[in-house]
């Protein structure tokens, strides 16, 4: 198991309101370097909203999101990614008319220096970066185990491969922290086991993972810590075995008939 280090991401008393709906209510959350932190909670608890606030899709109503000493609230969305936070989407949002490889290459572009002029005149640096990115993207596909699909258009890929390509694309941006939004949604048990192994490998390769997932057994197997949200409020934050037996959690989450996915 990788060594768990200093705090990488910290949400301090974050509240997010949509009109009358309070999606997040004073949430405190810490993600430590090198860990897999699972974020769980019933449907509509505000899990995806946490991701949306971190990545700048929404600006929190109040509170602070701090990443590696930088307040993310002041950053543009693309800057958040450049700082080292990447995400996947609950409802897959790949670029369907690009190939799998191109999807990842496009993500690797974040850290490229050469711009439009370099591309136009084929400066050596631009050429070299093109080559490097292609190599790197291919390596990531191999790492996630979907390299055989590299030349297929994303929209024609099987569902499970699309989900994994989402992860590959996120890794393409060389993040420190990866946010995975229900990466196993719609998977059968065998696929889930495989995905759990993949997520572990991602962490062991040095990425920090914040994972939203409904499947308890998957979470219990791989996460170092579990945070439970209910109606926008954090009701538990501990190691899996403790959370699993927390009566509030059982009432809020497990007591409610969990959805089949």
């Amino acid at each position, binding site marked *: 198991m990788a060594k768990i280090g200093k705090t990488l991401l910290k949400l301090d008393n974050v509240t997010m309101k949509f009109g009358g709906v309070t999606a997040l209510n004073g949430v405190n959350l810490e993600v430590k370097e090198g860990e897999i932190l699972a974020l769980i909670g019933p449907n509509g608890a505000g899990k995806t909203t946490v*991701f*949306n606030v971190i*990545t700048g*899709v929404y600006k929190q109503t109040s509170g602070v999101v701090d990443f590696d000493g930088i307040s993310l609230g002041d950053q543009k969305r693309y800057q958040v990614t450049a700082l080292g936070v990447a995400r996947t*989407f609950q409802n897959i*949002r790949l670029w369907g008319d690009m190939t799998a490889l191109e999807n990842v290459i496009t993500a690797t572009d974040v850290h490229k220096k050469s711009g439009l002029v370099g591309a136009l005149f084929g400066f050596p640096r631009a050429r070299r970066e093109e080559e490097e990115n292609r190599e790197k993207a291919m390596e990531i596909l191999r790492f996630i185990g979907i390299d055989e699909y590299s030349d297929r258009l994303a929209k024609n890929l099987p569902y499970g491969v699309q989900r994994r390509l989402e992860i590959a694309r996120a890794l393409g941006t060389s993040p420190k922290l990866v946010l995975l939004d229900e990466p196993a949604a719609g998977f059968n048990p065998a696929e889930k086991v495989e995905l759990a192994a993949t997520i572990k490998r991602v962490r062991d390769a040095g990425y920090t993972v914040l994972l939203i997932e409904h499947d308890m057994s998957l979470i219990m197997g791989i996460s170092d810590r579990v945070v439970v949200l209910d109606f926008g409020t954090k009701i538990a934050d501990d190691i899996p075995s403790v959370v699993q037996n927390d009566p509030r959690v059982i009432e809020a989450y497990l007591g409610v008939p969990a959805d089949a996915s």
Partner: protein
Amino acid sequence: MFEVLIDQFWSLTLAGISLGFIYVLVSLGYTMVYGVLRMINFANSEIFMWGTFGTIITSRDIFGYTQTSAPATGGKLALVLISQLIMSMAVAGLTAIFVEYVAYRRLRAKGTNRLATLISAIGISIVLSELMRLLTDSRPVGSPRVLEKIILTEVWGANIRLDTIVTIFAAALIYFLLERFVQLSRMGKAIRAVSMNEDAAKLMGVNLNRVITTTFLVGGLATGAAAFFYITVFEYSKFNIGFTMGMAAFTAAVLGGIGNIRGAFYGGLFLGLLEVYASAVLGTQWKAVTVFIVLVLVLLFKPNGLFGEAVQTTRA
């Protein structure tokens, strides 16, 4: 620079209000369709233009008025005006349904991207305006005067003219009726349900195609009524008058918060007044420029309009 504005303030205000009501009605054509489709009804400007010809044809070809005949009075006047209004609304309403059917429906069923629909709608508006250009030989067409522009009285140095008064009151009435229709009727409720949440409305058993067609129809009727008032005030039409009107009415809709029917009311009146005052100060040739600048400023700083609700939410 401001003398004209100060000298003629009240008559300008009156002109601004009557122009404003025309904008209110045309902007309904944008705002209602936007409400249900989340898409601009690009052809609304041409629906308006076709409506103006409905008005002209009624007085000229059905009732046989010419540029030299005497304006009508009494019962005949009411008959001609009402026929013109009905004809104008009918032509515009049918054109609107045609636009929906030809440019939007198929693409909606296929669920293709918005760019395709947008281009298709632009195509149909070009077709509509070019057809009229060919039919009228690119010439402006005058409308015989039916309603005499009598000066009723003078208040604070402003002439209160009959056509202005008719426009203001009749347009306000039509706006009111349409607004009630959307608020109270079954169909109106379905329209509002769809504009709030299309999926939920579908689950509740709303027939989406019928709602959308009706929305285009109602928007077209409002736009057609505006076309009638426009002709009563300005007395001529041309194949290309839609552009300026469309730009202004769209701006009015955005000002009021597009998708919001009450917003169209405030936005229309606001823009009507602003345009009249601005032309008095800057000269009429800069009218369109003023409108455009207003549009860009509103989109940039108050994209939800001065009176409206959110339109541009993104969800990830």
